[in-house]
């Protein structure tokens, strides 16, 4: 085997010894070059663990950047569309960043770790863009994906698990807050963030303490229903929460080839992330022009009749006029609803309007087709009060 082939071997995360042991299904996926679990036991059970107890998800492969320097804040403010001056130390912000044409390159979370010190997490890799954006700023941008081990702990008992593990005061951490704790001689950063739309936390530690963290978490959660969860269960959770995913619900603007395939924040339902009151930011001029001219697309949440998931369905306004397509779909066990995220061409997709999804489904090899009525809904399909309660109830 050539050296090249060897070097291209899929990597293992810092938790691999533990995830491999837990992976009864031997179900693996390649996530950004890392070996990650699709499901450990059964995706449904893992999903219900998140909704009724707590699930642990290995997020090491998430792309991470460390952004430091005297001008880290103005740098980020120019990079992303939202006002970063409002994100104080100890806070986390969801953000999108655009190209010059105001099209979304990616979304991600920005952690204000300490004064002037940030971590940016995203699905895709962007070092070249981030470095070019750094020209003219006193800022340092470094990739640190492999230097940080990260786990998500999501679900109603997650706070109780962390308390059991000895993280005193964790119950006071507010949504989108972060705090630092001591853990076996290391610093453990905990943020109240996640991709499930529920009460949950993300834990960040140096790789040397990764396995110990995993073990302690499961020990503390022994009677609190903690289960490892794979990407299948997480995907269902994020659709219920109405979270969009790069490469699925929109394509990174720097990857599309055909004109008109990239999306602006306005076209992804993220207008609340665009702040024209702050100084220049990437895409500002184009977005201002789009605001005047009107956007082309709209991302909508659909509540669909019946129980057949509308995977890849065309969306119609009326019976004949095709206006868009579904990008993510699922039967939501917790909402007892047939839900989907879809992209439709404006003016279709007004809140509470009615659309149709053309659903193809298979029964014993034979295909059937139905035009299912859909309601455009504004709220996430799953948005429990415990997601925001501080301190959370002790489940």
């Amino acid at each position, binding site marked *: 085997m050539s050296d090249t082939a060897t070097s291209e071997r899929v990597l293992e995360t810092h938790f691999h010894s533990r995830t491999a042991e837990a992976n009864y299904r031997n179900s693996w996926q390649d996530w950004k070059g890392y070996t990650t679990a699709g499901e450990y036991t059964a995706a449904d059970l893992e999903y219900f663990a998140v909704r009724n107890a707590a699930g642990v998800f290995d997020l090491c492969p998430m792309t991470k950047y460390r952004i430091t320097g005297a001008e880290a804040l103005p740098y980020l403010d120019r990079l992303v569309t939202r006002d970063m001056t409002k994100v104080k130390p100890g806070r986390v912000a969801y953000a999108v960043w655009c190209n*010059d044409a105001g099209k979304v390159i990616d979304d991600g979370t920005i952690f204000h770790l300490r004064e002037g010190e940030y971590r940016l997490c995203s699905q895709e890799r962007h070092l070249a863009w981030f470095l070019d954006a750094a*020209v*003219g*700023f006193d800022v340092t941008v470094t990739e640190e994906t492999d230097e940080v081990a990260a786990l998500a702990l999501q679900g109603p008992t997650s706070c109780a698990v962390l308390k059991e593990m000895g993280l005193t005061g964790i119950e006071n951490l507010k949504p989108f807050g972060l705090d630092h704790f001591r853990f076996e001689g290391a610093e453990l950063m905990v943020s109240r963030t996640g991709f499930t739309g529920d009460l949950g936390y993300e834990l960040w530690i140096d790789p040397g303490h990764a396995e110990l963290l995993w073990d302690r978490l499961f020990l503390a959660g022994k009677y609190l229903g903690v289960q490892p969860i794979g990407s299948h269960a997480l995907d269902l959770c994020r659709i219920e929460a109405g979270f969009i995913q790069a490469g699925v619900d929109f394509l990174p603007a720097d990857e599309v080839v055909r004109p008109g395939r990239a999306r602006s924040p306005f076209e992804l339902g993220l207008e609340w992330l665009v702040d024209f009151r702050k100084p220049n930011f990437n895409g500002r001029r184009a977005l201002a022009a789009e605001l005047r001219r009107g956007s082309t697309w709209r991302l909508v949440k659909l509540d669909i009749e019946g129980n057949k998931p509308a995977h890849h369905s065309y969306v119609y306004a009326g019976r004949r006029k095709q206006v868009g397509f579904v990008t993510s779909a699922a039967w939501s066990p917790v909402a007892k609803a047939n839900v989907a995220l879809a992209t439709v061409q404006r003016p279709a997709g007004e809140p509470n309007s009615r659309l149709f999804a053309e659903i193809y489904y298979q029964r014993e090899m034979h295909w059937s087709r139905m035009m299912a009525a859909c309601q455009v809904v504004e709220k996430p399909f799953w948005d429990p009060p415990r997601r925001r309660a501080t301190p959370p109830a002790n489940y």
Partner: protein
Amino acid sequence: MTERTTRDVIVIGAGHNGLACAAYLARAGRDVLVLEAADEVGGGAATRSFAEGFRVSGCAHLLYQLQPEVAGELELAKFGLETAAADIATTALSPDGEHVVIHGSRLEGRVTERDREGLSDFHDRMMRFAKLLRPYLNRRPPLLVNNDATDKMTIGRLGLDIRRLGRAGMQEFLRLIAINIYDVLNEHLDTELVKGALALDAVLGTHLGPRSPNSLLTYIHRLTGETGGRPGAMALPKGGMGRVGEAFAGAARAAGVDIRCGRAVQHIRVENGRAVGVELAGGDTIAARTVVSNADPKTTVLDLLGPRHVETGFTRRIRNLRMRGNAAKLHLALDGLPDFSGVDRNALGGRLAIAPDMDYVERAFNPAKYGRWSAAPVIEITIPSVSDPSLAPAGRHVLSAVVQYAPSRLEGGWSEERAAAFGDLVIDTIAAYAPDLRKQIIASELLSPADIERIYRMGGGHWHHGELALDQFLFNRPAPGAVQYAMPVEGLYLCGAGTHPGGSITGAAGRNAATEILRREGNS
């Protein structure tokens, strides 16, 4: 000094394009202030005093692209523009003394009959294409994807002009537009000496060798100019190129422009996404509704404006602009007219070329690719004191040479010692054709690209503020997002050689920019 602190327009840099732009804007009724960091106007259009009593064009030394529209409208002759020698010929120096004189399409010397016919044919073709492109120099370059009627007309007209060349002509145009001059000259000519001298014109001021793609386009671009009504002709300005700069300044002042030298702009000030004025070195600020930069695009965006005021993609394009200069300038003060073996006195008033064959030029380019200077450089020589005795004391002469290749990013960097060492090498190279030269030298200086960058504030020491190649030509110049002189930041414009139609002393960029500014900001 009390100074008014609000102007209609501030032009950064009193290069000839900045002055042209200022003059046109002032004529349209604008209150225009030009701020120049140096102590003299003209920028690269400069006359330099480098030894007691000896003066020489410090940067460009030949006029061949000054737009007659600009010269006429600004009445540059009234403000001192005068040619000392018009329509000069080129003497291609041969190591064996069998020099060839090239004058337009005519050849004198030891050449073949095929050379004579070939040059005439080559010259006709090139002039035809140059004539096609010529009108577009004085127009705003069109955006390709745009609904603007003017742009559509320009694109349509360009298409039509190419179509009018006829089937064969159109095919030839499309074949030649991105080709290298090496292959084309071999198609037409026999004599290496002639080909070498023609190749020199294609690569002068660029980071190209004769075999580089695009090197024919630079040759055609050069021919789009004219002097004294003769297309493609070259002239020596009286008093050196500084006189040209002064003529532009004179025209600007007459139009009411306020020109201040020794006032370096530190920053372009931006408020709410709009340029609102400048901050000078020392901290003074001057407000203006419109800011125009005659600096090169890199300096303007990366240093004066600051990337934070524009987008990352735009910053990326500006940073990637190819603008690495390769030309050094040698100035010699001589106690007499140098004796080039086999060259008559008359020819010394024209242009001498040291580029004995195309491979010589290509080999001279090779080391430049790797950050080293040519061991046997390509040299364009003028002795302007032959036609203009005012440049040197009586009986004495001044020699001006453009020397390639001297890469701006020299391995290990440029220093005074290294510039002097390269100067020595250049003098030796010239002395091979004029054996007594060294004895005649009273004083000498070599301006490296680093010196040119410092003195004339040209990024990378690049004479054209950016390679003139297809990827940075017409609707790609300097880069998408700033093609029509307007920058992404409202109220900020470019007017220098970095914009269409590019480098050399033309005045066209300044004139086009002024037209565009008046169109966009309204004729108040």
